């Protein structure tokens, strides 16, 4: 079993009203006759983070694509920031997507564009933002991921970790309401993974954006649930027991296309469900 992080305890009751960022209602989808998600329902509140866990092929990444409207469910409703994306046309979805940043599994940077152009892509597409404003925001986003010196480099010149950080900069350059992370630490070494997790915690704790993160690395998920970002020291710090800090990070565990757990870290690690015990071990 994974070691229990020290400050895991029931979080203080949330005073926030139930403003919902993402809502799934009985959503099902299958590919080539095989069901991938089978009637799943969950909610993500504004300012909250949820980490999607599960074995490979359990439908974690599919959930992120459904949120963005990149694919449509066979059944069910998906409501994102008050818009029912399942009923919207591709043109209408572009407006909703402006409020969502997405970090893809393999970064998905445009390899024919420089880092600067990759990060400014969405701003360039708006067509009504001045060049000076775009430059300022691109630098701000790259400073956030500590890669301001890579402005004129091509993605092929960057390491895997740097590409992932540029992808984060591209996702947050418009200060989106929701950020989606698809295995942001997959394939990275432990040191680089920690850097990426620090950026995710920074985005969560400093900008208070809602987020859904897919990962198959339990240690990363628990690290995010048990650490908060300290702006003064510019790094993550463990949440001390009794500290009045709520990082509002919960977990969803998927199995065979169904949600078998949706709750906070302390409930996950104390679960008596045999599958969850085995998953955590």
């Amino acid at each position: 079993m994974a070691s229990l992080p020290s400050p895991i305890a029931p979080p203080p009751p949330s005073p926030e009203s139930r403003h919902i960022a993402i809502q799934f209602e009985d959503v099902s989808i299958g590919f080539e006759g095989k069901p991938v998600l089978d009637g799943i329902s969950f909610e993500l509140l504004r300012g909250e983070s949820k980490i999607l866990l599960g074995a490979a092929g359990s439908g974690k990444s599919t959930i992120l694509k459904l949120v963005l409207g990149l694919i449509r469910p066979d059944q069910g409703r998906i409501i994102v920031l008050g818009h029912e994306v399942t009923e919207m046309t591709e043109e209408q979805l572009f407006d909703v997507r402006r409020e969502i940043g997405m970090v893809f599994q393999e970064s998905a940077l445009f390899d024919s564009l420089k880092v600067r152009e990759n990060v400014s892509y969405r701003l360039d597409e708006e067509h009504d933002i001045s060049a000076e404003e775009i430059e300022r925001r691109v630098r701000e986003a790259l400073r956030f991921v500590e890669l301001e010196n890579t402005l004129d480099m091509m993605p092929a010149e960057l390491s895997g970790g740097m590409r992932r950080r540029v992808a984060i900069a591209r996702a947050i350059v418009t200060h989106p309401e929701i950020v989606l992370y698809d295995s942001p630490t997959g394939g990275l070494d432990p040191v680089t993974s920690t850097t990426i997790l620090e950026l995710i915690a920074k985005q969560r704790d400093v900008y208070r954006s809602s987020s859904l993160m897919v990962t198959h690395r339990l240690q990363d998920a628990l690290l995010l649930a048990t650490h908060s970002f300290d702006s003064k020291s510019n790094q993550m710090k463990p949440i001390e027991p009794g500290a009045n800090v709520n990082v509002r990070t919960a977990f969803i565990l998927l199995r065979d296309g169904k949600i078998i757990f949706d709750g906070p870290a302390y409930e996950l690690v104390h679960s008596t469900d045999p599958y969850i015990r085995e998953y955590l071990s």
Partner: protein
Amino acid sequence: MELISPTEFAKDKVLAVQEYYQLSAQAVANLLRQPRYIADTLQQADIIGVGSLPIVVLTGFFTGAVLALQSSNTLQRFGSLSLIGQLVSESMVRELGPVLTGLMVAGRNSSGMASELGSMKVTEQIDAMRALGTDPLKKLVTPRVFGTVLMLFFLTIISDFVGLAGGAFVSGTLLGLDARQYWQNAWQSLAFGDIFMGLAKPVFFGFIVATIGCYYGLSAKGGTQGVGRATTQAVVAASVLILVVDFFLTRALMVMLPGM
């Protein structure tokens, strides 16, 4: 190899035709919609047009030359060697110029488009583009379709001309014909219908080359192997479709323009 039921096979094919039709219709409709990606269109026109120029010039020149060479024996037998200019010009302008240029551009650019868009698809760059608020059909497909149609039109004119020059070279150096007589004969034999047919075809062929290349690229799946498969399928489909459409188009134009 996995066996597929005939029903599933037929369904797949019908679905593919439907998706291809949707992509093609959308690519054309996007010409009238904002935003228009002018810089991307010019870049594609440069890649397709200027990039294909060497192979089109070489193909056109040697096709005209070999046409003159092959037909010289037959014409000589009937004492009509002086008509070689007419034969080369009509063959090049009506048929060989547009078809061979189309096939060359298909080989070079359908494959290029399929591999480029296919790589973007399997590395999730197409999804990223949609997630960032851009319609990939507007940004990637329409500029390629417009650029290819426009440039294939001009490449065909160049190919026709260098084909005639190839015929002139053979007529002058190997067959001992007077160059002036060759060019006069070639020029005077061309009627409006010949030129109309020769310039209508590249518009259709350019559309086929670009839409097929983009369709196979955007349908690629299964990693690098899938990209390779998409590339091969794009070249084969575009080449076959050009030859099939050529036949029906020729027939239709012959009916529309009597006396051809």
